[in-house]
């Protein structure tokens, strides 16, 4: 019964949506093309047929409008799941998330809960250009009152989405176009992954690679290659960005004494900087080398693959940074942007 089947990330998310909608009648899914079309990326395919138009709601193109509708509905006890076709478009609803959703509970002195999930793909796919390729978790994670979740596997995707839907605070749940087809084992039985708990995706002794979402796979690929060189990297998947599992990061670094952070987004004031600062201030005396970031270059995303390829963090750049970090012979790498 509960032995895992291998399904895609997309199917795992769909199961989470279906199970939670089955479980709680207050839960509904709303967004562009989520119903009749089955979702721009087919995550919600079949849910309209199963739950009907009352609970699977196609919206006009009006992110501020339907994000606000979700907030209002959550204020009075519903548990909305708002899909942004991609998080790039959520920037047109930024005010609703940052000025309203993140503030309500605090400024009402705890009178209101806001059990709402905003979800959709974030980050680069392939050649989608500057306006459609942004990894935006750092922007939302900066804001107290929001929670931010970025899953990396089908099992985590299902477990974290279910937990996010049951959470009583606003959660920004960031998926990835290029991961929807990714396959992995997912428990058939009830499967929940608590928010705020990181996961060691690969244990190792020589350095800790802190990462999340799509980059977990870049880190794992790099770790395999490094193993061949006798460098044993631990890959720590944050899974939840806010709240951050600081203890898990510090525990791992206490063991490895070296910390590399791999982040898809832009370097400046990103989550990677938060992790680096945490490690530098909390584990300073345990570190054998400064924390190092591997991130996207500090540029808008170019369309041409020849350029996009060098912008995004790659196993190669991760391997090079890890070698420097472990060797600690080469001069400490310059700011993330130039870590190639």
């Amino acid at each position: 019964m509960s032995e895992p089947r291998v399904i895609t990330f997309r199917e795992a998310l769909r199961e989470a949506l279906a199970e939670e909608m089955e479980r709680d009648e207050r839960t509904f899914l709303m967004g562009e093309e989520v119903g009749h079309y089955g979702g721009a990326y087919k995550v919600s395919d079949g849910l309209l047929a199963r739950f009907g138009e009352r609970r699977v709601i196609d919206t006009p193109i009006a992110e501020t409008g339907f994000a606000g509708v979700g907030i209002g509905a959550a204020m009075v006890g519903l548990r909305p799941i708002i899909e942004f076709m991609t998080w790039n478009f959520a920037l047109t609803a930024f005010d609703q998330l940052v000025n309203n959703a993140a503030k309500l509970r605090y400024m009402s002195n705890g009178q209101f809960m806001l059990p709402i999930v905003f979800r959709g793909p974030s980050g680069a796919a392939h050649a989608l250009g500057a306006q459609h390729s942004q990894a935006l978790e750092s922007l939302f994670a900066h804001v107290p009152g929001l929670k931010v979740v970025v899953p990396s596997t089908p099992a985590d995707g299902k477990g974290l989405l279910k937990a996010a839907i049951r959470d009583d605070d606003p959660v920004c749940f960031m998926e990835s176009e290029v991961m929807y087809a990714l396959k992995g084992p997912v428990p058939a039985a009830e499967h929940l992954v608590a928010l705020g708990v990181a996961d060691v995706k690969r244990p190792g002794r020589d350095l800790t690679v802190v990462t999340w979402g799509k980059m977990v796979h870049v880190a794992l690929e790099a770790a395999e290659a490094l193993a061949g060189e006798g460098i044993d990297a631990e890959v720590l998947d944050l899974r939840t960005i806010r709240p951050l599992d600081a203890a898990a990061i510090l525990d791992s670094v206490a063991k490895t004494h070296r910390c590399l952070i791999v982040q898809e987004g832009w370097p400046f004031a990103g989550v990677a900087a938060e992790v680096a600062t945490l490690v530098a201030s909390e584990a300073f005396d345990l570190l054998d080398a400064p924390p190092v970031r591997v991130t996207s270059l500090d540029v808008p995303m170019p369309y041409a693959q020849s350029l996009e390829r060098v912008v995004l963090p790659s196993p190669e750049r991760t391997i090079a940074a890890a070698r420097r970090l472990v060797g600690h012979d080469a001069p400490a790498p310059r700011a993330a942007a130039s870590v190639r």
Partner: protein
Amino acid sequence: MDAALLQGLYRQMLLARRFEEAAARAYAQGKIKGFLHLYIGQEAVAAGAISAAAPTDYIVATYREHAHYLARTGDARGAMAELYGKATGCVGGRGGSMHLFDARRRFLGGWAIVGGHLPIAAGVAFASKYRGEDDATLCFFGDGTANMGAFHEGLALASQWKLPVLFICENNQYAMGTPLYRTLAVDDVAVRARGYPIEAEIVNGDDVLEVREAVRHAIEHMRREPRPFFLEAKTYRFRGHSVADPAKYRTREEVQKWMERDPLKVLAERMATLGITTDEQLKAVDDDVRAEVQDAVEFAEQSPAPAADTVEEHVYV
């Protein structure tokens, strides 16, 4: 004409007026901080509209919401204490004048980003319809809000989904220092509603009964068959945009002209003509209201400030 009704509305409006006059004094004494947006002159809109609603209908308002809060909750102490930033305030001193809430009494704020609460109000109405409940949602906002994208998206979704939300535009002729004609190329905000399309009506916002009647009628329809309505109430604020604003952008004549439409004056005269009140009775109401406000002020002054060590509470559940 129901005498008790008129007397009740009069008292409600007067309570809001005296409450804000007291708040303005406290602000001048430095006892209230931050922004303080007075509703003085517009009282008929909140009083008329909210009196037409059931206690179970939802209210969503702006930063200029003292009168709405009082009309719904009657809680002068909680409101005044909140303006004072005290732990006994309706949101424990965390919200302030612009962010009053009372979940139990379905008063849903208190929002201070222009336009942002219209989609939220539509969402509250969405929830009522989703649950098959016939509660209506009343959403108050100003004339200056009509050019915001959130106004457009809120109205568009409410219309598309036939949500039982009543958009009440409190057209007080100005957005801060900007007269409406400088930001709206049409004469009435209500014209905008028709493009969605949402049935819209324009009323004299200084006539509490006219407002009440229009809202009653709209809510009646909404209960029978969920759909949005739009009401534009023409009124005027006698004070500046906030107490910090000297309002130099208006001529004394203009203000005078509108003051003749003072909703309290208008209603008092009507009650007198109807023979359902006397100067003595009006005086008695005023004494009564002043006492209630005075009590609220004393309550606020004597209440403790929120304890510093609670500052990190209520960010998350």
